[in-house]
């Protein structure tokens, strides 16, 4: 492991250890937080008992649907916009301000329109993710070298086949960056929406446990979210690094 990696591990172990100590000695009362070791233990208990298996599956399924829809729509719209510069210019200010808009403010609206099922949560995840995919697709397509497009012309590829065989493969690493963001944003959107109002899912269980002062459920579930999201993001980050290194060779 590299030196920064070692120090990082040390810092994290130190912080968790401090929290453990403060909780065990009662400086942090148990109504506020439970020690990390108890969180981990309770999390294993919860996972083994299967009490929240359905919530976990529902959340992961909704996140996956949001990511899949965002990828398909983002790549399709990005490719279309890239070939229509006039339309793209009109929408540019929208993309520049898109992430400034508090997306959760639309959640009440989505609940009224889509009903109180899984759809509003998926919609929030999708809305947060789709523009990241779109912008990264555009960014990648903008960088396709002219010579590749000319080669496609020489081979008499039509616009659709040029997109599928030349432009999108070239843009793949950029689209992967979009995918990475889509994963993070879909988790944020879906779990956040579940937390605000819903009737199942990990976010819902955290909110429910909080309302009942049930720290033995709330903290393990928060820990579960952190562990899942951070490990998914870290493995994507490593994968992306490998992709980029391969391209540089």
């Amino acid at each position, binding site marked *: 492991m590299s030196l920064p990696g070692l120090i990082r591990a040390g810092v*994290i172990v130190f912080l968790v250890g401090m929290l453990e100590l403060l909780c065990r000695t009662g400086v942090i009362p148990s109504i506020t937080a439970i020690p990390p070791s108890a969180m981990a233990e309770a999390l294993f208990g919860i996972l083994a008992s299967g009490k929240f298996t359905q919530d976990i599956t529902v959340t992961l399924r909704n996140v996956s649907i949001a990511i899949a829809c965002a990828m398909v729509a983002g790549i399709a719209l990005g490719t279309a916009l890239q070939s229509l510069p006039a339309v793209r210019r009109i929408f540019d*200010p929208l993309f520049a301000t898109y992430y400034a808009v508090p997306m*959760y403010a639309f959640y009440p609206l989505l609940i*009224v329109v889509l009903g109180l099922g899984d759809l509003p949560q998926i919609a929030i995840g999708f809305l947060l993710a789709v523009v990241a995919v779109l912008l990264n697709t555009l960014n990648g397509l903008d960088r396709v070298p002219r010579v590749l497009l000319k080669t496609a012309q020489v081979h008499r590829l039509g616009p659709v086949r040029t997109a599928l065989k030349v432009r999108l493969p070239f843009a793949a690493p950029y689209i992967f960056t979009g995918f990475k963001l889509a994963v*993070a944003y879909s988790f944020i959107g879906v779990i956040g929406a579940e937390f605000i109002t819903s009737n199942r899912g990990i*976010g819902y269980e955290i909110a429910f446990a909080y309302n009942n002062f049930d720290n033995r459920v709330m903290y393990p579930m928060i820990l579960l979210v*952190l562990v899942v999201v951070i490990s998914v*993001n870290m493995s994507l980050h490593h994968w992306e690094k490998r992709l980029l290194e391969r391209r540089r060779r």
Partner: protein
Amino acid sequence: MRWRDPVLLIVLLLAAWQLLYLAVGDVALSSPARTFRVVTAMLGDPRFLPHVQETLLAFVQGFAIALAIGLLLGLTLGANRLSGEVAEPILVALYSIPKVTLYPVILLVFGIGMPAKVAFGAIHGIVPISLFVMNAVRNISPVYLRTARVLRLSPVETAWKILLRAALPEIVTGIRVGFSLTLIGTILGEMFGAQRGLGFLLMQAMSLHEMERIMSLTLLLVVFASSVNAGLLALERRLA
């Protein structure tokens, strides 16, 4: 001609809204015209203004904290290579987690009320601001830093006279991203466990199924967030 495209975009969005309204009707959506009337009525209502003040007050405090900590953290981590490498993955991980799940922890620590909202807004803003500032400082030409050393500037002087100025455009980008995220955090914080503020009004309107109010509040927030964002974006382009 600079204004043509944004104006066209707004007209397009309004047209899409009107068409959607005509398609789904009064139950699910309120029309643009009606929403604008409700917004005007709301802005003239003396009972509405305290909520705006509450949200603004929480937001301004949260943003000030996010700016102070974010700048300090970003400058330190950017100037010191090793600590930057140690901290970056942690910051990126913090950026990608759904922070709303941490809200119960904030509430347990700060209690329901203003401090919890401020803290929640601030934790949304700190991470992006420090990440942007850190990368901005790392990209500063080493000549500037060597000059600072030759002139025997103290760390504080170096930060103020060299780092901040050389990295200003990217720092403004960080501030812009931090601004919107702090706003989101503040509104989110008001959506649970608050008795006042725009987020509270949104949740109330949702439970009462008052479509007009939901849409008017959403419209107000969207207009506010996008105009500040557009302003900061223009500043960024002038500095770059």
